[in-house]
């Protein structure tokens, strides 16, 4: 067990980083928005952290800076994006990521171009990452139980209904988009701290596909959806080791198949199962009480 953990330490650590990225996608998906801005903030914070690291800035300061920058830019993007509906909003977030990609590849002096930035110190281990994931998951679970969380649930199911009962969709979306930016930035920063490098691939198409695989496969029904999605994605290369060059294709197929056949993802299936069990228990309780009613 111990040796197994040591052997797969990198995979497990990366899984935790992915979980935070998945949370970042999840919070916006829950308010009925398809945004890939998370990947943008993942990239901005990642490069920011890598560059600051080269100048030996203390890691905590780097995290603080990454959160600050992501938060501010996230809020700005959110303020622009909520004026738009549905697909237009998606389009803006994709344009944002595509622009970052161009900047990263062309601004070689700072970003290292297509090679990226290498050989940075590793600042966080698997247990540290686990701690961060737990803190974030607990905060999200609490947030979901709270007022705003419930508002988002109804919003997700029926936008018009939400509006008619006085839920301010714009505000909800601004909050969600900003929160998503913060989480995306945190994940990007931790990614660099864990791997000690930042490469231009991390701004590319495959991160978008990774992020979507996690959040679609896991589902957005509850906070454990992205956890499941990230866990599966992290182990996918191990499972597919014979065909790594086909990994993108496998993920693409997963996305389409899940969307068509199980749009609620793993979390949705779990919830349905749980509800089924609860309903069965309730109905069996009712049945048991029936004779008493008759005798009464």
């Amino acid at each position, binding site marked *: 067990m111990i040796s197994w953990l040591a052997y797969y330490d990198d995979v497990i650590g990366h899984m935790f980083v992915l979980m935070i990225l998945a949370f970042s996608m999840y919070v916006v998906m829950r308010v*009925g*928005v*398809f945004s890939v801005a998370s990947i943008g903030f993942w990239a901005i914070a990642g490069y920011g952290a890598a560059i600051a690291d080269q100048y030996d800035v203390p890691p905590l300061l780097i995290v603080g800076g990454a959160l600050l920058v992501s938060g501010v830019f996230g809020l700005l993007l959110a303020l*622009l994006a909520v*004026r*738009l509906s*549905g*697909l*237009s909003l*998606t*389009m*803006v977030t*994709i*344009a*944002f990521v*595509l*622009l970052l990609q*161009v900047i990263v590849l*062309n601004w070689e002096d700072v970003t290292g171009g297509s090679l990226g930035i290498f050989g940075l110190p590793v600042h966080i281990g698997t247990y540290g990452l686990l701690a961060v994931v737990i803190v974030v998951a607990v905060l999200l679970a609490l947030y979901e139980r709270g007022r705003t969380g419930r508002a988002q649930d109804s919003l997700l199911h029926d936008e018009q209904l939400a509006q008619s009962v006085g839920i301010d969709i714009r505000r909800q979306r601004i909050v969600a988009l900003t929160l998503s930016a913060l989480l995306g930035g945190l994940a990007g920063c931790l990614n660099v701290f864990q791997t000690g490098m930042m490469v231009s691939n991390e701004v590319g*198409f*495959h991160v*978008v*596909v990774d992020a*979507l695989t996690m959040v*679609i496969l896991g589902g957005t029904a509850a906070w454990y959806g992205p956890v499941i999605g990230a866990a599966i994605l992290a182990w996918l290369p191990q499972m597919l080791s014979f065909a790594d*060059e*086909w*990994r*993108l*294709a496998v*993920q*693409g*197929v*997963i*996305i*389409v198949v899940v*969307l*068509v056949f199980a*749009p609620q993802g793993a979390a949705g299936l779990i919830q349905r199962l749980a509800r089924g069990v609860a309903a069965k228990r309730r109905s069996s309780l009712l049945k048991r009480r029936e004779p008493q009613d008759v005798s009464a």
Partner: protein
Amino acid sequence: MSGYFVDAMILGSIYALFTVGLSLSWGILGVLNLAHGSIFMAGALSAYMITSAGALPLAVVLPASMLVSGGLVVLMELVAFRPIRRRAANPLAAELPMAIASVGVSSVLVAFANNFTAGYSLSLPQDMFTVSSINILGLTITNIGALIVVFAIGLTVALGLYVARSRQGRALKVIAQDSYVGGLLGISMNRLALGTMFISGALAGCGGVLFSIHVNSMHAYMGEALLLKAFAVIVVGGIGSIWGAAIGAYVLAAAEVLAVVSVGVGMRDVVAFVLIIVILLARPQGLLSKRKWQRS
């Protein structure tokens, strides 16, 4: 000076071939096809595969590649978009899953291309089409450049007239506005969707083949950068408008050439993003779109 004009015309024509279909499927069917860049690439790739099987002239290869790329989008419609649309509670609810599914398909296509090309750039064989310089109205342009312009303008105008005049064109406008009423009037959305998707893919494929001859190279990610440009074109022209997309394409190309000439090459890809942000801030419904048919 006239060199810049020729550059802008060719660039704008590529943008037009790429964007018209993207805008059409978005505006009419609510499908933001994020695999459109991969379809553009698939056109070029299938041209390469066809010519590697045997020496054939462009007059054969181009239609065949358009058939392949159009067919691919039809396949997407059948395996992903249609099932998602059928399951959705209302047309709006299908939009986000369809867009996400298109990323999945794109992922499959990119993985295939990456494996086929082993990550390198390829060039189409010279004997399929020999590039040379010609003179038209005092302008020096390559024959492939001229072909691109002719195809872009010819196909766009033909499609624009068809949609404006034909029975199917009117039906498309009904579907775009209100698919429920379309059904009650005897219009089969599924059939029209197949046609729209095929045209959208074929135009992109045409652009992909001609573009890869023009720049003498093709690779797995060649379509990705175009997506950002297409978004800017759509924002200028209005979602779903063929004429708008055509005008927007040349406007963007002219702006880009102007930016390169006056500021520098680095500015080229920023223009599109700035255009998107500025126009969306000022007029979220698009620059050229009008709403004069609504009663206040």
